[in-house]
Structures are given as structure tokens and as C-alpha cells.
């Protein structure tokens, strides 16, 4: 599958999936993803274990992330974004920026006096 097909199949990502994918720019285990995302969003995005498990399975089957068995003592699986995953994340970031820009434009919230 070439990258355009993958993007077409995988996007738009759900908010949970997007945060998981982006968080995996560095290798993390499951709980590490939860913590990182909760910290970054000040608790707004709290990934439930069921959702996280499902999203990890999906992202792996799409080839956007990969897992490796941690050889350490804890033997927890580490997840990391793949090259394809990076490209999909970049595509989503561009798309979300465009959505935000269009939103501001349409709502007349451009510039600095948008804090109303």
C-alpha cells in the first residue's frame, strides 16, 4: 500500500488516536502514553485502557506504529511510530491546522482580538 492509500484509510484520526500516534514519537509503553497525553492536555484527554488498547491494535494493523518487546526486567511492550505513521501524523497536523485556520477565518476570530 502506498502512502496515499494509507492516509485515505487512516484519516481523519480520532482525537485519541491522534494523540497516541503523536505521543509515540518517542518509544513508550501503554501506561506511559496515558500519562504523557493526560499531562500534555492537563487532564482533558484521559485515555481509558479499553480505548487505548483498541487504538493501539488499530494503529498497529494500519502499520502506523510498531511494538517491540522490551528486553528489560519489566517486559512491558514498547510502542513507537513507524515511518508511515510519521507521514500520516504530518498529514493530520497540516489538516488540523487548516481546519483551525478556516475556523478562525469563518468566525471572524483572526488576529489578537479573538479572546472574547
Amino acid at each position: 500500500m502506498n502512502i496515499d492509500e494509507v492516509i485515505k484509510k487512516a484519516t481523519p484520526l480520532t482525537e485519541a488516536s491522534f494523540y497516541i500516534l503523536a505521543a509515540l514519537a518517542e518509544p513508550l509503553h501503554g501506561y506511559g502514553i496515558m500519562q504523557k497525553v493526560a499531562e500534555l492536555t492537563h487532564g482533558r484527554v484521559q485515555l481509558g485502557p479499553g480505548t487505548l488498547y483498541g487504538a493501539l491494535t488499530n494503529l498497529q494493523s494500519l502499520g502506523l506504529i510498531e511494538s517491540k518487546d522490551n528486553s528489560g526486567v519489566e517486559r512491558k511492550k514498547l510502542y513507537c511510530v513507524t515511518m508511515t505513521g510519521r507521514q500520516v501524523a504530518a498529514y493530520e497536523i497540516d489538516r488540523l491546522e487548516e481546519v483551525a485556520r478556516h475556523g478562525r477565518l469563518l468566525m471572524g476570530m483572526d488576529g489578537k482580538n479573538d479572546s472574547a
Partner: protein
Amino acid sequence: MGGCSWGWMEKMIQHETKQTKWFCKVIWAWQDEKEEKWLEQQALKGWHLISVAPFFYQFQKGDPRPVTYRLDYKVMVDKDYKEYQELFRASGWELAATMSNWHYYRLEPGNEQSPDIYNSNRTRAQKYRRLLAGVFPVGFIFFVVLFPRMTDLVEGSEGIGLFYRIAYMLMVFILLFLAYAVIRIVVKIRRLESESKE
């Protein structure tokens, strides 16, 4: 079939011994949210789940507190089962009991971790997809292996015993019920997936 009401054939509280009690209650797989609420009500009365068998629940007496129960379905022989369990454990969900691939998770009050095991209906629907996949082999064995044999057996000979006839009737009933269960679960998946915001 009138909603969920017919499945709620609540039965009696059974022998209460010391600190534990058994409770018999008929709840079907597609009524798991009701089951969660019922378990939470029991916890408010100080009864905390320790084990589950089909239609039987064992509770232990403790202090009454508002705990959260969530049911999840996951095949225990899956390769990633350890990883799955670790995710729940790490996020504060204690495994109270399991019953044929159903997992009864408990979250103690005051736990700041995720208030629910699913954030979206889309991922919640996946739970029921896993359930269907888990039920499928049973249905398949019934339909393709056992049922035709029984049909041959019953239709083949006139002098077949009453025992076989009753067993056959029972099998037909179970088959119909399985079909009904699958429909209920599919409807649930459809509803969840159409309700998901994205």
C-alpha cells in the same frame, strides 16, 4: 421482544454465609451496562464482587463505598492478553472477577485515573465486535457440526428415545437463542457506531 425487561428475571438471594453471599441473577451479554449499575448498587450496600459464574455472583461484605464497575470482553488466550491486562492494572482498574472471557473491572472511589475504560463509542463498539468474534466459534460448532448430526439422528430412526428428542428440542432452542443474542449484539454495535461523533 420487549426491550431488556424480559431478561431481568431476578431471583432470590441465596444462602448468606458469614461474609460472603451468592446471588443469582439472569443477565445476558448485551445487558452489560445494567450489570455494571447493579454491581455498583451492591457496592453501595457494602457487597463487593469476588467471583462470577454463569448467572451467579459471589460478593464479600466490606465497607459501603461508591466504586465503579466496568465489564470488558477479551479472549484470554490472545497473544496480547498480558499487555491488555497491564493497561488496565496500570490505570487503576482492579480485576475483580472473570467469567468466560468477560472481565469485571473495579475502580475505587477517589482514583483520579480515567473515569471510564472507553473514551468513545467507536472503541466501545470494538468490545462487542470482540464478543461476536468470541461467540462465533461456538455458534459455528453448533450449526455445522452438532446440529446436522442431531437432525440426522432424530430423523433417521423412528424408535429414537425420548432423551434424544428432548436434547434435540433443547438444541433448537439454544440455536434460536444464539441467533437472537447475535442480533442484539449487532444492533448494539450499529447504535454505538452511528452515535460516535467522528
